């Protein structure tokens, strides 16, 4: 009679919404690569979808960092979408389109195309799921085929900043409106061990403009949604969810790209803290048994 062999645990990396803070996932990724720990699937939401897509496509950490530095900067928000704003404030005269985005999305779309080109979900080396929110119904939408640019563009469609994006005939908004840390997607796709890197949105010390007020209110909604969803997912999962929540020690705002190195280091530190338990969970040999690990 042969002894039963325990099934290998399926590992998912889930990267939640968090704009520049999502770069912390690169620190985590570097630690996982150094340790030879691969993941069976990647799930990304909003800013996290950029990193999840890069990892799924097989980009290395340095390549991803360079790519996101080129993508995530103030140039992508410089151009205002006056047509959209006029449509919002003078709907009869300028024909309101059913949504509004204050920032013209042409620079953002161009930057995404530079980073991801014509790559599609079929091109990934690790399964990828990108979370967005359907405008018409408010439902979470898990995107797993078609164009990577379309999926990421939909997932990062921050309300009022960028217009929603159409995918398969449906207008999509930022995934953080329905599922800021989409652990549920990993559960549904059969993951056992889920590395959940999530971020709560910071609140500004002072609200100085209507835009900052809109951001503040949006953060209240999404932070509460983050906690409510995370609570349910923790209780619903049959195995383990490892929360990887970097401590940045200072505010990291939407376009603080000059803090990338710090953010990545914080992500790596948060990952190192989980490593001993992760190794036990995956039944990996202790570092001393595994020989000298190569550090990239």
């Amino acid at each position: 009679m042969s002894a039963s062999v325990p099934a290998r645990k399926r590992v998912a990396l889930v990267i939640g919404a968090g704009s520049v803070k999502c770069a912390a996932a690169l620190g985590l990724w570097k630690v996982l690569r150094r340790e030879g720990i691969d993941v069976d699937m990647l799930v990304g939401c909003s800013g996290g979808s950029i990193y999840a897509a890069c990892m799924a496509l097989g980009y290395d950490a340095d390549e991803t960092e360079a790519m996101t530095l080129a993508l995530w900067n103030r140039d992508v928000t410089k151009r205002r979408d006056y047509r959209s704003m006029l449509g919002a404030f003078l709907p009869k005269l300028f024909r309101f389109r059913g949504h509004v985005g204050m920032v013209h999305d042409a620079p953002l779309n161009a930057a995404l195309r530079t980073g991801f080109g014509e790559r599609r979900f079929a091109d990934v080396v690790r399964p990828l799921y990108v979370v967005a929110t359907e405008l018409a119904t408010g439902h979470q939408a898990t995107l797993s085929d078609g164009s990577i640019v379309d999926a990421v563009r939909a997932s990062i469609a921050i309300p009022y900043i960028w217009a929603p994006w159409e995918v398969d005939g449906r207008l999509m908004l930022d995934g953080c409106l329905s599922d800021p840390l989409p652990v549920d997607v990993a559960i549904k796709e059969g993951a056992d061990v889920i590395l959940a890197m999530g971020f709560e949105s910071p609140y500004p010390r002072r609200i100085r403009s209507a835009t900052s007020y809109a951001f503040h209110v949006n953060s209240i909604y999404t932070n509460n949604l983050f906690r409510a969803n995370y609570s349910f997912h923790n209780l619903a999962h049959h195995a383990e969810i490892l929360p990887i929540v970097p401590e940045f020690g200072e505010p990291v705002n939407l376009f603080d790209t000059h803090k990338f190195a710090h953010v990545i280091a914080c992500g790596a530190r948060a990952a190192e803290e989980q490593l001993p338990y992760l190794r036990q969970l995956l039944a990996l040999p202790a570092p001393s048994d595994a020989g000298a690990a190569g550090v990239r």
Partner: protein
Amino acid sequence: MDVVVEQRTVTTVVRITGSVDGLTADALLSALQAQIEAGNTRLIADLSGVSYTSSAGLRALLATVKQARSAGGDFRLASVMPPVHKVLEMSGFTTILKLYPDVELAVASFPA
């Protein structure tokens, strides 16, 4: 993980040391449930020696609080370390569990 039980006048303090995770949650749950089944339903977990919890640990804590309250008591947490507090807060547990800065305050929170 180690569990040390200390019986007080009307409460039972369970001092937990180590990680509360998928590798230890079953043992912790058994230890806590044994106290409730023995009639010690006013339970306090001293978490000053716990620096890590995961989803499996949270499920053990939730099962204990439900069982303690069903039996007419409560399960309260004391001296929660910042990393554990963060996970409890993120997962909504601070809205349903009573937390105290130290064991003595938790003990005093139960009516004599």
